[in-house]
């Protein structure tokens, strides 16, 4: 009886909400297709299969802490969208992986610290994501594998108002298919 009541309540609610799609609709004008809602971010511990070696172009390498591919973040200076030289090796490793796995796609999310305008920070995050994307493309990844978007200051990793914390939030993150 209890189950019955809650099922009918859910049905009623679904009917009430029926005209309101929970997911974005398709835009009539040539808009890319996305499937929001299917977010699977695997945070399970890495399973170490072979203790000694790993193939740097295999999918497993993405989560192997011994592989540079397990590192996914590029950090930026204040109000800057210049990729610093120290991240060149990391970007090269990801570009090689993308070139070796042409079916893999990457979403690059740019982030900004909290200071200043939300929309300007969104644009700044976009510039950072775009800079990462351009670097990867120059190093051999294909344009169609890459999408750069911005989360601006909206998804901070660190929420203290300190320089150290802001530095962590001025960031570009590289996410592979299945992670976004």
């Amino acid at each position, binding site marked *: 009886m209890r189950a019955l*009541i*809650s099922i009918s*309540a*859910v049905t*009623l*609610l*679904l009917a*009430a*909400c029926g*005209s*309101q799609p*929970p*997911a*974005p*609709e*398709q*835009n*009539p*004008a040539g*808009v*890319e297709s*996305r499937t*929001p*809602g299917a*977010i699977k971010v695997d945070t399970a511990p890495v399973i170490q299969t072979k203790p000694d070696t790993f193939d740097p172009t295999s999918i497993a390498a993405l989560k192997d802490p011994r592989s540079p591919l397990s590192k996914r973040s590029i950090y930026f200076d204040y109000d800057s969208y210049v990729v610093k030289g120290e991240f060149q090796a990391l970007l090269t490793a990801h570009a090689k992986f993308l070139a070796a796995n042409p079916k893999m796609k990457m*979403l690059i*999310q740019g982030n900004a610290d909290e*200071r*200043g*305008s*939300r*929309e*300007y920070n*969104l*644009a*700044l*995050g*976009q*510039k950072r994501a*775009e800079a990462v994307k351009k670097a990867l493309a120059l190093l051999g990844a294909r344009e169609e594998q890459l*999408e*750069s*978007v*911005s*989360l*601006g200051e*909206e*998804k901070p990793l660190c929420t203290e*108002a300190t320089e150290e914390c802001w530095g962590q939030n001025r960031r570009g993150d590289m996410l592979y298919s299945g992670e*976004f």
Partner: protein
Amino acid sequence: MPAMKFQRLVLACATGLALCSPAAHAQLTVEITGAGANRLPVAIADFTGERIVSQALTSVVRADLERSGLFRLIDAGSPLADSATPAFEDLKARGADAVAGGSVAMAADGRYETRIRLSDVPRQAVLGNPAYLHTGAQLRATAHRIADFIYEKLTGEPGVFSTRIAYVVKSTGRFELKIADADGSNDQAALASREPIISPAWSPDGGKLAYVSFEAKKPVVYVHDLASGRRHVAANFKGSNSAPAWSPDGKQLAVVLTKDGSSQLYVVNADGSGVKRVASSSGIDTEPRWSPDGQFIYFTSDRGGSPQIYRVATSGGNADRVTFEGSYNVTPRPSPDGKSLAFIARNGGRFQLALMDLATKQTQILTDSAKDESPSFAPNGRMILYATEIGGRGVLAAVSSDGRVKQKLSVQAADVREPAWGPLVR
């Protein structure tokens, strides 16, 4: 019914998004922190007729006028019906320049009929005597209309007590896009999500809100019809989609897209069709806002090396730089009369609300806070609502365009941000 509410919450949590969620009861409270220098002394007498109704009406009318910072309320001494002649000599002695009386009567159809008479005390002349037919549920709305009438008669400008505001409340793991009356009452959630919601913008007719939601793990621009609760995607191109601004005729939206590289300005029809670029630079162009006459779009750009405000004619051509002082001037908001521009300026590490006279380019800093964002003009141009931070918590504040009247609007135990003041109700 409580079970139903619970189910709704479960459903909301399950999808991480709810377009018809119950309103959490966290009302905005408005606190006056500064008032105008020359406040007009006005007496709002107790209305006659049904006591509970008349008391509810007069208390809201008084609170509205008081909150505006333009009036000083004078005790009228005794109740006053709309049909009675005010005791002008006594009111003059009390210091009142104007007096309003009224009466509430039950109409034949079960509704109330409230009649008001506003009089000039020194001249002993009637300034107006409107009547309002309303239900019990429309008490607050009627009181706001009465306050608007009194405000307009005494200041010559339209009142904004009947308008609504939109804002975003962030509580733990939850973002709500809320709509409330301008006094913070009657708040309702138009959208609740686990992901951020930013940049709400009212359509000129007040029926729709455009905003940016991150529910698809990236910024997408939606247009949300408030009466039906239905919404559609206005911009979801490859990359980020943000910063919607309505054209004055409500037919188009200026948006920021990154489909061709970095953040650039485009105009789309409100249904999302007909995208076209309106300005271009190799850097960042964002935060577009139409001038009220529709001739220009003001925006923020770093094309000159630091973020500054520019404007471009909607008919095309080169962009002109508007701000020159300082190294960070963002978020341009033209006033409703088009004569001034509110924006956020960085001064020695503090982000403050500034107002520029567009003819003389004279700029005044209106606040003494440090983290001001998202200014939004009241539709009569008198007040500017903005987001700021007090004690590490996001609050809304409002300041008059002369910097004298100040208000703070806050919600207990939550961050409030991204305010947008709705248009005049006709």
